[in-house]
Every structure is written in structure tokens, then in C-alpha cells.
């Protein structure tokens, strides 16, 4: 992978880029014309490779390429992308990459507010060409790169050669500069046009001057020289961790160290302490390991004595009778299996193993018992809940039946009364007193005095129904 900002990276093939992108670029007619005339020989600026001087605000980064928007467009759902990025994305999936709403390529695009464009234009950038230190706002970099920068690769002046050379070397009198030559320092084959840049930047064997002490040395030694030897490089006093603030050229710092740095005592003390701490840590680690082994041994010992000592204790400890044969086997184990306990491994002896197994089983049985108890409790709780529910329903139904019963008796009494009244009215007024008594006993208010001729059921019922239904509801 070449490092960023190599001239090669600046090249962007126009073929790869969807043509739509150009439709959205705001450019003056003159620059468009100049652009058209130059594309044949000059490289096109790749906006994704530009280095920004200040970090770009995250809101101005395209979510697809993660670089500052280049000729941005907005989808109908309101998301903004570089035109090139969204076009590539829509080739595989015709939905917005962010919210997956359908987007119709190019037709649905909305132009971005110009204020965003201005913001993007004002970002300060570096020229992507290696060797060029030009910096400007982003709106001008394209012109610089494509038309003015001397480092931009353009087509070789030799019409038979398809390669590219930096603009400054592309004079017709130079001819084609793409023949290969051997680098005198590293023996690598390099094209003639690249030999200078190779020796300046890449060649490991090239002789360079140390920028600090001007000493000549080959490039691959330079970093080491600057970090360790160069008397003119800036460095810190070796006791800076102990608080010495001296930082100067190595020459000065060395003098300072030799003449006795005041922090040296503290530094040495700290070194000593660090060493001591290491030893202490190691010893502590060993101690815990030892203790662990010791406690394991002790545990195993007590277990063995317990198992060997009393069979009774074990049988009483076991809750299930099924494990008893296991215990007797435990007791027999030592004579059956000759001593293999002192090999240091955990559970090395058969009785240890059996004991462990037994304990595990016991624990499992205990667990199962607990679980079944829990399940029982849960089950009975559920049943209880259902039962209360049912009994509630039953009482409710009982209540309702009672109410219906009352309605029934009331209706029946009313019916009876009516029949009696009818009978009374035909027989004579002597029966009305009885019918009155029936009505009042039904819980209603006494009927208002009326003419006897008005004693018709249809007139009576609306008045009385109110008064009669009330007590029923109260029940």
C-alpha cells in the first residue's frame, strides 16, 4: 500500500466515476471548458484523497466514503451523500443506504442548500501531490491540481507512450522519460522520471543529510540515528520520569546528565523500587500458588480420613439409599487401588474421585428435590388462583340468579295483581284494597290516589317502575 498522498493516488479514472456526478458539479462555463480541454492530458482530482488541514466536522462527512462531501446531493428522504457514492450504492440496491426508503437514481435527487456548499468550499486542504506544499480552500484545489500544480501527473509528451509524468517534466524537449534505470543506491529498477522522487522519498539506500547534525548517512539509518545518536536532535534527560525537566539537544542533555542531574537520585531510587516490586510480586505469586496447593492437599487428606474413618457418618450423610453401595466401595478402595494419591494431581486417587462423584450426585439430587418442591409450590399456587377465580365467578352467578329470581317474583306478583284487578274491576271495587296491599309489599311507593277508572296497567307502570327497580338494584 503506498503511503497517502502519493501522486498515484491522486489519479482517478474518469471511467469509474458515474457521469451523473458532473451534472451536479457547480462550475462556471469557462472552467468547464478548460476542464474538458485538459482531461485528455491532466489527471483528475480525486476528492476522496485530499488531505484536510483541520479535522472536518462529522456532519460534513459522507456516510458512505467517510470523507467530506464531494458534489453532494440529498435523497427525497433527506439524507445527503456524495453523488458518486450514492450512485454506486444505488447500483446494487435502489434504496437509501440509511433508512432504506426507495430512491430513484438521479431523478429523485434534491440539490443541497448552497450554504452547505459554501461550507465545503471553505475547508482548507493540501494539494494531494507529493512534493507540493500548496494549501488553499477546497474550491480552488481542483484548479490548482488539474491546471497549475507542477507535480500533477500528465500524459507523457511522447505520443507513443501511455504513461504519465509530472507536469514540470512534461516538456516536449525532454522526450519520453519512462525508460527504466537502476538506482545507484539500492539497485532497484526505477523509471527515469521517478528517480529523483524515489531517491528523495523511498530509496532506503540513498544518502541523506541528517536534518539536525548535517551528517551524511543512508536513509534507513536516519531514524535510529536521530533517536539514539545525533548530538543535535532534541531529546529529554534520561531521568525525566523522575521529574527532570531538561529537554534540549542531545549534546546539551548528555552534558547535563554527566554533570549530575539533580533528579538522578530519585530516578535511581525509583528504578530500585520497581525492581523490588517485581521481586515482591513474583514472591507473592509463588506464595499464593504454594498456599493453594497446600490447602488442596489438606482438604484431600481430611476427606480421605473421613471416608476411611467412619462408614456410619457417610451413610447418615447420604440422603438416598441408592448411594450406599458407592460408599462401601469407597471404603474398599484403598486396598483395591494401591496408593496413587501422592501424584499431586487433583482427584488422583480413586476414593477421591468416587467421593467427588458421590458429592456431585448428592448435590444434584438436592437440586432436583429443590426444583420439584418449587414446581409443586408454583403448581398449587396456580391451581389456587384458578380456584379463587372460579369461586368468584360462582358467587357472581349466584347473585345474578338471586336477582333474576326477584325479578321473576315481582313480575309474577304484578301479573297476579293485574289478574286480580281485572277480576276486581269486573266483580266490583271491593278488591282494589287487596291489590294496593300487594303493590306496597313489593317495595314500591303506594300508588297515588286516582279515579278508579284510571286503574289501567299501561298507565301505572311508567311511574311505578322507577320506584320498584331501585331496591332491586340495591340488592
Amino acid at each position, binding site marked *: 500500500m503506498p503511503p497517502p498522498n502519493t501522486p498515484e493516488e491522486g489519479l482517478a479514472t474518469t471511467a469509474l466515476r458515474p457521469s451523473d456526478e458532473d451534472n451536479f458539479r457547480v462550475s462556471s462555463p469557462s472552467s468547464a471548458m478548460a476542464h474538458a480541454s485538459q482531461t485528455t492530458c491532466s489527471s483528475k482530482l480525486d476528492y476522496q484523497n485530499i488531505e484536510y488541514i483541520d479535522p472536518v466536522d462529522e456532519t460534513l462527512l459522507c456516510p458512505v*466514503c467517510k470523507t467530506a462531501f464531494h458534489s453532494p446531493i440529498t435523497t427525497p428522504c433527506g439524507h445527503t451523500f456524495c453523488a458518486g457514492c450514492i450512485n454506486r450504492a444505488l*447500483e446494487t*440496491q435502489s434504496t437509501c443506504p440509511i433508512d432504506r426508503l426507495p430512491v430513484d437514481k438521479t431523478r429523485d435527487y434534491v440539490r443541497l442548500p448552497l450554504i452547505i456548499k459554501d461550507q465545503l468550499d471553505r475547508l482548507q486542504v493540501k494539494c494531494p501531490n507529493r512534493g507540493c506544499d500548496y494549501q488553499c480552500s477546497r474550491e480552488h484545489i481542483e484548479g490548482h491540481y488539474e491546471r497549475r500544480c507542477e507535480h500533477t501527473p500528465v500524459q507523457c509528451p511522447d505520443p507513443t507512450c501511455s504513461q504519465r509524468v509530472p507536469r514540470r517534466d512534461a516538456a516536449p524537449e525532454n522526450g519520453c522519460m519512462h525508460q527504466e534505470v537502476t538506482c545507484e543506491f539500492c539497485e532497484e529498477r526505477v523509471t527515469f522520471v521517478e528517480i529523483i522522487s524515489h531517491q528523495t522519498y523511498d530509496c532506503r539506500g540513498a544518502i541523506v543529510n541528517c536534518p539536525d547534525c548535517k551528517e551524511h548517512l543512508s536513509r534507513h539509518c536516519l531514524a535510529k540515528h536521530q533517536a539514539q545518536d545525533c548530538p543535535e536532535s532534541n531529546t529529554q534527560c534520561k531521568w525525566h520520569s523522575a521529574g527532570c525537566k531538561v529537554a534540549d539537544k542531545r549534546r546539551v542533555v548528555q552534558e547535563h546528565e554527566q554533570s549530575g542531574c539533580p533528579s538522578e537520585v530519585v530516578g535511581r531510587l525509583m528504578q530500585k523500587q520497581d525492581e523490588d516490586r517485581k521481586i515482591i510480586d513474583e514472591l507473592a505469586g509463588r506464595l499464593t500458588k504454594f498456599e493453594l496447593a497446600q490447602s488442596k492437599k489438606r482438604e484431600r487428606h481430611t476427606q480421605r480420613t473421613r471416608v476411611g474413618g467412619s462408614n456410619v457418618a457417610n451413610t447418615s450423610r447420604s440422603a438416598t439409599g441408592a448411594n450406599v453401595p458407592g460408599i462401601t466401595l469407597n471404603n474398599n478402595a484403598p486396598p483395591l487401588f494401591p496408593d496413587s494419591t501422592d501424584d499431586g494431581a487433583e482427584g488422583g486417587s480413586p476414593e477421591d474421585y468416587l467421593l467427588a462423584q458421590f458429592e456431585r450426585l448428592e448435590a444434584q439430587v438436592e437440586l432436583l428435590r429443590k426444583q420439584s418442591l418449587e414446581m409443586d409450590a408454583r403448581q398449587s399456587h396456580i391451581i389456587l388462583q384458578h380456584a379463587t377465580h372460579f369461586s368468584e365467578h360462582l358467587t357472581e352467578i349466584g347473585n345474578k340468579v338471586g336477582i333474576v329470581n326477584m325479578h321473576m317474583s315481582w313480575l309474577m306478583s304484578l301479573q297476579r295483581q293485574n289478574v286480580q284487578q281485572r277480576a276486581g274491576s269486573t266483580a266490583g271495587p271491593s278488591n282494589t284494597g287487596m291489590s294496593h296491599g300487594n303493590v306496597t309489599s313489593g317495595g314500591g311507593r303506594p300508588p297515588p290516589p286516582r279515579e278508579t277508572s284510571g286503574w289501567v296497567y299501561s298507565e301505572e307502570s311508567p311511574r311505578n317502575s322507577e320506584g320498584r327497580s331501585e331496591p332491586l338494584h340495591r340488592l
Partner: protein
Amino acid sequence: MTVPFAAKRLGKELQKISNSLPPGVELVSAENFEEWLLDIKVLDDNPLYQNQTYRLKFRFGPSYPIEPPEVVFVQLPDRPIPMHPHVYSNGIICLDLLGQQGWSPVQNVESVCMSLQSMLTGNSKNERPPGDEDFVRVNRQRPKDIQFYYHDNDV
């Protein structure tokens, strides 16, 4: 010579994740823009994945991030394949996010790692996908060529 789209985007991502990564995600190696290795851990107390670290292998095609990367779990002595009903025992992951349909170019390595973390976190089944043994025995395809059928929306 043009730097592929994928490399440019991955360069940006690498820059970002070498500075900061979400908790439980660690970059193991990213020596080129074709294959990266990352370690992920499940941080909550899901007993299935406690104290375990899983190794993820990302493989990027030249049209990443338009096309999804190929992401699989890798088995190493100290890096098991997590138990999950969508993770086959050979490390292949059945996740719509990593398929052609579910992928979106706004996703990135970091977001994929976090999705996988949450996929593991939300799982309570200690099992492999149905037909795991047959699949592992028979499958010679690359994960991206397998036609998964994403039926389970719970996990």
C-alpha cells in the same frame, strides 16, 4: 493506477478504530485492506458467553462498502466459535446485515462488530442452527455465495 474505493474507505476506518473502539471490541491485525482480524467480547453477564473472546475475520472485496464484507468467526485454541442459533460451527454467520439485501454502505467494521455483540447478547439458546452438521460437512461455498433464508426476526 487508482487506489480502490475500498482501500480509501478502509483507510479512514482504520484511522478511526485505531484511535478508539467500542468496549469489548479489539483490533488484532489490519495489515492490508483485504483482511482484518478483530476480537469481540460479550460484556453483559450472559452465561453463554461469559469470559470468552471470539475472533472475527473480515474480508473486504474491492467494492466495499457498496458490497458487504465477508465476516466469519475463526476458531483458535483460545478463541472458540460462539454458540448461537445463527452461527454455524465452522464460524459462518447467518445474519441479514451481512447479506446482499440487509447490507447498507453506511455500515462499517465497527457497526458490524457491535451488531454481532448484540446478536450474542440477546441470545439465550445454547444451540447451533438446525442442520448444522450437514451444512458444515457439505458446504464449500464462500459465505457470500450462500443463499440464507432469514426467517427468524427474534434474534
